[in-house]
């Protein structure tokens, strides 16, 4: 179904990328792993957007860490949306 005034598919038309863990993400000693993870997420995000768009679906990310969510939203300009669902 379509949400009134929204125009994008909801319900089963949402394609989720759900991350769990990553409590170490901002640890000073994890800079190398953090960079590798960001590069991996960037690649996943780009492919996810392209695949979801080609299928007419709506792409969403979920992450349990509020600060990671704030960073990803800023880094990606809000697309795809990243929601914060604590684990």
């Amino acid at each position: 179904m379509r949400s009134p005034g929204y125009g994008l598919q909801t319900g089963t038309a949402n394609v989720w990328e759900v991350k769990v863990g990553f409590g170490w993400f901002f640890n000073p000693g994890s800079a190398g792993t953090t960079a590798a993870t960001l590069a991996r997420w960037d690649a996943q995000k780009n492919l996810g957007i392209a695949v979801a768009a080609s299928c007419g679906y709506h792409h969403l990310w979920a992450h349990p860490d509020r600060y990671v969510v704030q960073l990803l939203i800023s880094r990606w300009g809000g697309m795809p949306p990243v929601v914060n669902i604590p684990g």
Partner: protein
Amino acid sequence: MNDSATPGRLSRRVLAERAAPSLLDLAPGLMRVCRTVEQRLAAHGPWTAGDPGRSIAIEQGAIEQFLQQVMRARGQGFPAVCSFTATGGGDPLLVAADLEPTPAGALASVWFPMPEREPAGGWLALLHDVAEGFGAHHAHLEADDLLMRYQGRRATERARAATPPELRAYIPDPPAFVDGMNLDLLVPQEYDRRQVPAGVWWINYWDRAQIATLGEGRVRGAGWAQVVEAAEGALLLTTTDEPLDLANRAHVERLRLLIDNLGLLDAQRHARYESSG
């Protein structure tokens, strides 16, 4: 800490961008960036490429072969990572690259984390070498705290607008900043950043086209700590003599002044894509 919400959780990167129709076009530039990293950051091979990493020589042919593998994997639906890691030093150093479609054509980026130690020759020399080695139209030293100040509010608006209503409550507010100074800009996905810089960072490399958009006299006279000429009309622009620190109110005021003097937000609005919402 300026941002009360994210103490101790921020990182910094060196980032450069250029127009490129395909990842394959990046091989010479990526080779030069990796060599710059070796020379200025004392990062050592052996190098690996991708995730998981496989051994690679930092030579154009080997990089082209790897980029072809990345493109092939992505074409088959796998989110292959385009990265190179110098594994021989104390801490592995990752250099990541990617290609982003935009309404103005594909833009390629390369980035790597800024290490704690100062590079050989200083940060300005590092940024210069990365920008010119990559063939960039723009490069800067990016910090997450400043990224969130520039883009957090607008990006959160866009995220909420693109989220089904029943899920919008799960989009957190952007970080709050205790100094109360407004540094809001558009997000780079909204406008042609080939023409307009995405922000003012500690050290910035802007090519002739970006400078022309803002006006060369306006750029040179905006109030920089240092302006250094680079090749083909590009400029290296330093905001503060010491590393930019958003906990220092004078630094935030300097940023506000530069953004205002450059008319940066208006320039971003002027270069906005019609479809950006």
